[in-house]
């Protein structure tokens, strides 16, 4: 048999602070956290810079917020494997398994 749970209602905690600043946020139990928003001129394309930024502020006990890193030229697994655009589960059997002649040709290309 389930029992009833009672949860005291609390108001949501919301913060709004400027880029490059640290915001201390007090939570419902009285504990506090430090939020650090990235600077307005932060470069999100610098991977090493993002790692440094993250670790530097983590050492200060600050949680960084914002867009930290973007690689616009990134590839995904399908590009790495050079798979076809058509989903594999929609390909016909003869396409997925073109036969021994195709296999022989492929093996020959590896020699």
């Amino acid at each position, binding site marked *: 048999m389930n029992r009833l*749970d009672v949860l005291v209602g609390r108001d949501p905690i919301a913060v709004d602070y400027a880029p490059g600043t640290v915001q201390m946020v007090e*939570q419902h139990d009285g504990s*506090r956290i430090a939020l650090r928003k990235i600077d307005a001129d932060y470069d999100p394309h610098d991977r090493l810079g993002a*790692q440094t930024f993250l670790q530097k502020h983590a050492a200060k006990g600050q949680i960084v917020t914002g867009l*930290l890193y*973007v690689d616009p030229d*990134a590839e995904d*697994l399908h590009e790495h494997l050079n798979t076809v655009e058509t989903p*594999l589960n929609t390909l016909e059997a003869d396409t997925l398994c073109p036969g021994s002649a195709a296999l022989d040709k492929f093996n020959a290309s590896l020699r």
Partner: protein
Amino acid sequence: MTYIAKPKFHHPGLKKNELGYTHRDYEGKISTLCAGCGHDSITASIIEACYELSIEPHRVAKISGIGCSSKTPDYFLGNSHGFNSVHGRMPSVLTGANLANRDLIYLGVSGDGDSASIGFGQFAHSIRRGVNMTYIVENNGVYGLTKGQFSATADRGSKSKKGVTNTDNAIDLVAIALQLGADFRRALVLRRQDPARAADRGRDPPQGRVVHRRHQPLHRIQQPRRLDQELRLCPRAQ
């Protein structure tokens, strides 16, 4: 509360998105998690994000591991594909599904135990391979199902409900993902309902995404605590 059927009726005036769906069309079953659990706020945020982004539910595949966090896909996107896999093995199952059908939007749902302990290797390799997915880590730093032990992401110096201090260093999943080549990463601290807007902003990057959502546990860790934090790492936006 699984015996309570969720009513399907809704107010006829509910706002619809570009597809003509209301947010009710993105909901799942009634949550069976503890009242007030932060996981439910993440569920609500996912529903809101998918509604606002006008994502077709049938184009989403939600795949999870084991744990409280991995139960949550049952509570959102009830009309989507779903698979509750093995503990810590969500990334592998999702990778296989992605290879078979690259047209779906993959949502991987995991927790701090699922991704930072038993599935730590899976987490790492899915990122270094650049699997096209949204990886959500519902991270509260504690194993709630097994009575409140510290997880691998618990802050050093944290105190449990019974006063035990965590002396181990914490795994920072976001820092590790960045090191492993995650090519889109976002760290946000947001109000409860704001992750939907964050997801909206996350559409632009050309590669997929991994979301690390950190929230505070329910009265288990005393100090320090963290507000809703959403950290987004990615390989590929849909």
